[in-house]
């Protein structure tokens, strides 16, 4: 895949590390969560077939994290 780094442009996927689903915030008050809710934060992430908003980091480049949308059925990068 060619991953579009917002700072460096399109680069080979070898330069990147993957971060899974985007937009899962660290809970504001973990102590207030039940064990089940905490487990959901720790372990459960969306796993759709199709467009997926996900995180990447340009690990061997600018080291910046960013989000993009990619189709998990085709690997097409949608933006």
């Amino acid at each position, binding site marked *: 895949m060619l991953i579009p780094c917002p700072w460096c442009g399109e680069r080979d996927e070898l330069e990147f590390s993957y971060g899974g689903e985007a937009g899962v915030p660290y809970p504001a008050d973990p102590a207030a969560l039940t064990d089940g809710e905490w487990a959901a934060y720790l372990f459960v992430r969306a796993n759709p077939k199709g467009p997926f908003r996900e995180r990447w980091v340009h690990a061997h480049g600018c080291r910046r994290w960013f989000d993009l949308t990619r189709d998990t059925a085709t*690997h097409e990068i949608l933006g």
Partner: protein
Amino acid sequence: MRFSFAGVEYEGREGETLAAALVRNGVLGGFRSPYRDRPRGVFSDGEEEPNALVRVGDEPLARATLVELEEGLVAEPVAGKGRLEPPRRERRYDSMHAHCDVLVVGAGPAGRAAAAAGGGDVILAELGRCAPLDGVRVLERTAVVGLYDGNLAVAVERGRRLWRIRARRIVLATGAVERPTLFEDNDRPGVMLAGAFKRYGRPAGATPVSGGFTPRVQLWRQAGGRLRWDDRVGAPVPDGELRAVACAGSVTGEGLPDAPPFALPDGEEGRIFVDLERDATVADVRRAVAAGLRSVEHVKRYTTIGTGPGQGRTSGVLATRVAAELLGVHPGELGTTTARPPYLPVPFALLAGRNRGPLFDPVRVTPLHERHVELGAVFEDVGQWKRPRYYPRSGEEMDAAVLRECAAVRERVGMQDVSTLGKIDVQGPDAAELLDRLYTNLISTLPVGMCRYGVMCRADGMVFDDGVVMRLGEGRFLCTTTTGNAAAVLAWMEEWLQTEWPELRVWLASVTEQWAAVAVAGPDAREFLQPLTGVALDAASFPFMAIREGEVVGIPARVCRVSFSGELAFEVWVDGRRGHELWRALEGAGGATPYGTEAMHVLRAEKAYPIVGQDTDGTVTPQDLGMDWVVSKKKGHFVGKRSFDRPDTSRADRKQLVAVLPADPDELLPEGAQLVADPDVPPPVPMLGHVTSSYRSAALGRTFALALVRGGRGRVGETVHAPLEDRVVPAVLAEPVLYDPEGRRRDGRPA
């Protein structure tokens, strides 16, 4: 030119393939089928050749139709299976990267036209030979074998160079391959595809056959393209469009002759061959259908048709047509099997490229490495690093060397290269806040000029890494990490900083290689080092966990009073480029014994300092290690804190780090040994835990071990058993810190 085949010499011509030369010499047979041992001969003149496999030199399986003659070439027929032999030459190949606007695959008329049409930088790749084309980069004798995401084409040039070509657009002009026809004994020598028959000059005794043409759609399929059945061509053709890949010429079916009508042939079906590579016949397809199979994928697997090197190039469509006929359906309803890369077999060595031997994974060494080599160090791999494990003197075994090195540190002074520790520079007004959130203990209360041991957990509460945090200024810290984890810890810190707390004004940088560091440890460390530095080393001026700047042996240095052995110790950090000079000067001062990782491990184990990754395995909390003290009770939250309250992490009988003393003080437990309460029950024997570290101790005058034991702290004093291969070793559980539990040696030799 002369060549030999199956031990017989023949005359060949320049530019001929082996197959062409054999046919021209009247050799229409000479090969055997892989499973039924039937005679076979050259069947085609291209990459689809199913029969004419040869061993040439140390190429175990080459297609005679692709082997170019060379003077003195020696070829032996192979019946399906090659023989791997030790390479006679070093097979080490280069690979190339190329970028272009248009990649055209195939230099037939359609391919040449597409390449000539331009559109920017154009690369034209052709499996065979290819005349030059103006303004086009031509790669002849180059097989495009795979198409990957992002329009990455992988190609093999002359079998000896790998190309990775990124193209904005790809035009597939891959043409079509001729299909055989079905009749009894259609596999006999001399039967060959009509096109090959013509191109071989209509050899006497040969029989041309043609069942129409099958477009080479493999790359189109690899790119994600769909297919539709074309009744006129009698084969699947590309359907629909792809964003950046197009087809041109006969691969689309256009211009191909009408396929002859298809009917199941008469004759003995067990002698009508569909797949020559797998010796599979119409009878096999009939069996598959009778067995209840309806999908071509199932028929393929049942009959093995299309699983050979040709991946069904000549057999796939035939099998589909036979199955459709037997099932009474249109072949288009059956679908096609998947085409998978590579299009042609690719040598392992070509794909491995230069990433072999020392280049398989980079070797990292410290600035002192050469000196360690001179000192005769035995090295261990820690991550990518080479670290001295011990420094044997002549004739000295490891055990003796380690005992000697340990004794030197416990009784006098030793020195160790600790430059491999990861070092992360953390700067910014919110640096303390970031570290408070990532370490389990409080960092923000650390005074400038002091350092503190810290532990990091994953969000699941399990120990991830440990190290020392130095506060160099109000908003400036330097964090050390374990040797193997440096990159992971930096990535971890960056991830939290950038993705969760972007409001924190903090900047991170790896400075691992900017510094060389030497630990000077032992009761005589002060006496040893003081003459070499202007920094006052007395306990009052330079307390435990303090940091001082100054010069050591004339080199600007940072000195830290940290200890991983329990002894008085100073870590001397200098510019990496002067590390070698520092070490030689310390050596030159005389009296300090170089020690390696093994002695360091023993010394720290005597003090029950855990090693992350050895005494932990991703399932261990700080509390399990007996380090409640490193888990802040004051902080509102830090990464991992919530997980400590889960039912399983708050259990009292979790596995906890304790010391293990074998009943026989000479008995060394193997690391990894499991401990049980009762060794006499039949399997499965309930296990209490396992030995994580085990050593002979000079200071204790005996062996000892550390272990993670279920409810271990409550079992201190109990006898457990370690069942080994040939015996059961009894041992007593003990409080983990076995050496100087009061910590009286921290400031030097006790009075």
